[in-house]
């Protein structure tokens, strides 16, 4: 299992692995929004939590079609399926690897982007915490979408259409945490719900993804 994690991380940072693309995309979103909305700092501060979460969602989506598609194309998914390791664990490890190369760096970069969007000073800590709690769900839900579309030619668009609606709960609660945090309000409820979404997704979706992959390999 650790070998699979190391392999996926290594592949991500080698040439053509796509590491950093999501980060740069996240940065672009945060830079473009003030250009489009205008320099009114009050408006920016109000929309910052939502924009940062939407940016994180889209950045995460960008690299999802690689999670299983590359392994499917070169035949390693067949070989992993016949290896003496459960497919559920393969899915979980690959989701974790995806989070480590997208969600975690996004979380660490987010305060800088909060600055660009004039996020209220009280919000930074909660922005990091909300992303830290919420982005693991994005990876495992995305891996489920990738498992459903593995083997489809140009399944990337279908993948986005499948996955984005499933991101809605994380988006709502995540942005709410940051908004309340920035406003100095109580935020335990949305934070707990955000955590519940993440834990529920991690508990259930690896099984669904493994079933989808087995069906797609037939």
């Amino acid at each position, binding site marked *: 299992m650790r070998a*699979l994690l190391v392999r996926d991380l290594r592949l991500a940072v080698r040439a053509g692995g796509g590491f950093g693309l999501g980060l740069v995309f996240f940065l672009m979103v945060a830079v473009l929004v003030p250009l489009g909305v205008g320099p009114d700092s009050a408006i920016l501060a109000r929309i910052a939590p939502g924009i940062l979460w939407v940016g994180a969602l889209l950045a995460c989506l960008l690299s999802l079609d690689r999670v299983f598609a590359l392994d499917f194309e070169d035949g390693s998914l067949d070989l992993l399926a*016949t290896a003496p390791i459960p497919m559920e664990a393969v899915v979980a490890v690959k989701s974790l690897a995806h989070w480590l190369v997208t969600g975690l760096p996004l979380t660490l970069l987010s305060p800088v982007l909060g600055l660009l969007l004039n996020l209220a000073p009280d919000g930074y800590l909660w922005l990091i915490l909300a992303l830290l709690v919420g982005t693991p769900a994005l990876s495992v839900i995305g891996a489920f979408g990738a498992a459903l579309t593995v083997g489809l030619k140009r399944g990337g668009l279908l993948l986005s259409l499948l996955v984005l609606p499933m991101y809605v709960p994380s988006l709502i609660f995540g942005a709410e945490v940051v908004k309340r945090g920035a406003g100095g309000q109580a935020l335990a409820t949305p934070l707990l719900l955000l955590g519940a979404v993440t834990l529920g997704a991690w508990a259930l979706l690896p099984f669904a993804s493994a079933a989808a992959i087995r069906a797609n390999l037939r």
Partner: protein
Amino acid sequence: MAGSLALVVEGLAVARGGLAVLEGVSFVLAAGEVLVLRGPNGVGKTTLLRTLAGLQPALAGQVRGAADVAYGAHADGLKATLTVAENLAFWAAVYGGQVRGALEAMNLVALQDRRAADLSAGQKRRLGLARLLVSGQMIWLLDEPTVSLDAASVALFVEALRTHLATGGSALIATHIDLGLPEALDLDLTGFRAELGFRGAFDEALA
């Protein structure tokens, strides 16, 4: 271990794309034996191997003893940006095998720090076969293992296969060439061809 039964297949029916291609396939593969699947293109050699590897369900029939298999497909499952040694080390970690011996057996020691992307087709195939050696599994299911190998590399492969058989392993190989392995038994699949027609549930036809 020689003489004990490694794989017992009874009345197996397999389908490709929802269409039954083979039915009533029965054979016994004993430890230390190699069975070569013969038959023209499309007869169902790959489908049979994929079914035995557990990648797709059988329509009918029984398979016993297929727990300890290593499957070698057309695609080698190599990661282009990893080196030869890294590719192999991953599978060694999955199966708990040793990289060094496999590199030597497949004559890959000199290439071990080269990226898989920079290998020739034959070298890639040798790396794919080396994966079988690190797997340590008793039954090899091989789909055209000698594609793009030159005569010397085929000999290397046959040598590795002999070692595998001598240690109680067995192999089921789909191939069109003569491996130069006199002890190999042939199984002609032409006689097991299924009559064309949809089999099984409707959703299987769509799968």
